[in-house]
């Protein structure tokens, strides 16, 4: 059977294992092993496993950890921060790990904190994930009662405190530097870099921010080694991936599969294909900040490099399907509304440009667009692109727009020519 380390302990009833159940299933053994290793050895193993960040960026976890200053003369206070903001539209994977495997999360945090020698860890959870926070807090309390948390964990001399923080709710908090500012109790706008968080992060101390799914892999890498982790994947980078799918498919859901599973397999086998009467036109492969992939490219392997070759990115690996009964212009209007609303407002191109984009898209959808609006949209794609704004929110917002302008040009022009939406107003009716 295929190894599914992240989801092996999911229970049919959706309830998480308590600490006794988790220990019986082998839980907290990786922690015991890790505490006997040198922290640098853990970092080296994680680096060799080619674990790449599951939060969207795909950065090498081992390399990120290596950048934390260690040893003589380095600041003694360091922080590990888990990014569980998960507000990227279409993404619902981290919630599953929080709700159904909270002990895996806690164990992952302890081992990862040990690797970078952080004595305080924050789990930053989006405020709406009430159940996640309940279960994480319970798991942390159970772990503390068993001596896995607190001062001098299992007699190792290493101590750790975990805080579960409920976000006030804003997409920009997921951006790693804003997240740190949010934790400090300030208005969470992104920070300029350099310095990198690894040098100067939370309260100016070395800090590592990692995604929930990224870290949940760590205990398994420690337990079973980098070679095993590499063997799980179909491509060059290690591990499985929590792929998900939403939209008019027969079985929307989440599946843990080898990294590099193809899009067509996800759609046809795991999601069961499209519902009766619907056709799949395109997908956003990994959230709102990724580019459309069209049917011709559905044989693409959903790994970091392959998806880039078809002009998009894996993002969160949670895929949204655009079907033939929904208007692509309407979908883009919905997406850009999200980005315009969630812009933090700090830099001008994003603060002013995104609402402008939304207004143009709304006008085109309503049949009030002009052909030169398409040029204006194209200009925004350029001026809100990479390196033109203070953070990656705006370039992310341009991903679906740029690809949408390219692939749905005919639909845009049809709206403008016919002065109406060819799909008409189906939005207010249940399908």
């Amino acid at each position, binding site marked *: 059977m295929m190894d599914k380390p992240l989801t092996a302990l999911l229970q049919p009833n959706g309830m998480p294992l308590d600490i006794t159940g988790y220990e019986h299933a082998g839980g907290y053994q990786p922690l015991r092993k890790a505490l006997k290793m040198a922290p640098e050895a853990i970092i080296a193993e994680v680096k060799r496993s080619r674990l790449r960040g599951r939060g969207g960026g795909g950065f090498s976890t081992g390399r990120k950890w290596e950048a934390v200053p260690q040893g003589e003369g380095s600041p003694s206070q360091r922080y590990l921060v888990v990014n569980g903001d*998960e507000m990227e539209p*279409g993404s*619902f994977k981290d919630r599953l790990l929080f709700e159904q495997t909270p002990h895996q999360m806690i164990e992952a945090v302890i081992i990862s904190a040990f690797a970078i020698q952080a004595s305080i860890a924050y789990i930053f959870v989006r405020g*709406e994930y009430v159940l996640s926070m309940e279960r994480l807090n319970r798991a942390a309390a159970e772990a503390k009662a068993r001596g896995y948390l607190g001062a001098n964990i299992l007699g190792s001399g290493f101590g750790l405190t975990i805080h579960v923080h409920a976000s006030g709710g804003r997409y920009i908090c997921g951006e790693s530097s804003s997240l740190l500012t949010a934790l400090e*109790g300030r208005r969470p706008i992104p920070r300029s870099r350099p310095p990198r968080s690894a040098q100067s992060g939370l309260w100016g101390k070395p800090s590592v921010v990692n995604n929930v799914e990224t870290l949940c892999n760590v205990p398994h890498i420690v337990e079973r080694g980098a070679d095993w982790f590499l063997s799980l994947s179909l491509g060059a980078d290690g591990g499985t991936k929590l792929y998900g799918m939403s939209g008019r498919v027969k079985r929307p859901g989440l599946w843990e599969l080898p990294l590099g599973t193809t899009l067509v397999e996800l759609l046809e086998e795991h999601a069961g294909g499209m519902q009766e009467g619907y056709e799949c036109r395109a997908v956003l492969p990994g959230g709102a900040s990724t580019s459309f992939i069209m049917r011709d490219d559905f044989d693409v392997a959903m790994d970091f490099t392959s998806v880039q070759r078809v002009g998009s990115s894996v993002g969160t690996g949670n895929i949204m399907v655009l079907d033939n009964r*929904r208007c692509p212009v309407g979908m883009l209007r919905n997406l850009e509304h*999200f980005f315009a609303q969630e812009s933090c407002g700090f830099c001008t191109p994003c603060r002013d440009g995104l609402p402008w984009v939304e207004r143009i898209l709304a006008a085109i959808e309503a049949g009030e667009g002009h052909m030169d609006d398409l040029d204006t949209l194209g200009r925004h794609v350029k001026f809100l692109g990479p390196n033109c704004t203070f953070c990656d929110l705006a370039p992310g917002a341009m991903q679906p727009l740029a690809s949408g302008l390219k692939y749905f040009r005919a639909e845009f022009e049809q709206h403008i020519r016919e002065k109406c939406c060819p799909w008409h107003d189906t939005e*207010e*009716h*249940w399908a």
Partner: protein
Amino acid sequence: MSTAEQTPAPDAPLEAALREDIIALAHHAEYKRAAGTDALKLVQKRFGYVSDRHLSEVAALLEMTPAELDAVATFYNLIFRRPVGRHVILLCDSVACWVMGAGAARAQIRDRLGIKPGETTADGRFTLLPIVCLGHCDHAPAMMVDDDQHGNLNAATLDAILEQYR
């Protein structure tokens, strides 16, 4: 259950017990201001929203100016700076729910309760607010009412869910 009788007036000072809770939060945080969102949420739990008066009181406890704390409070989707109804409906308006019929859910709420996003029913029972993707996309369309998550909304389930909140 109606909480209307138990909710104190928004211009009443924070009770001693609530002030103690906020002081404890600040004490546990590494720096007092880091307890800001948690403190505001406590106030909101008690009063339904954060009034100007309460914002100033919390700011003083955290050794911040009211303007500093308001810069945080006004930034967040889940901190309400104006009164809300007894129950808050957070209806997801992001893309997976849009594909699956969030617009129909919004229209049905408008028809049943007479409110659009941002509005409160005349009897103070519900406030409807839009919210971004709730991480429930495989059960779209989705919404929250207070702390409860609801998915797979359709014409029938939506009415039944609303009925649960009085």
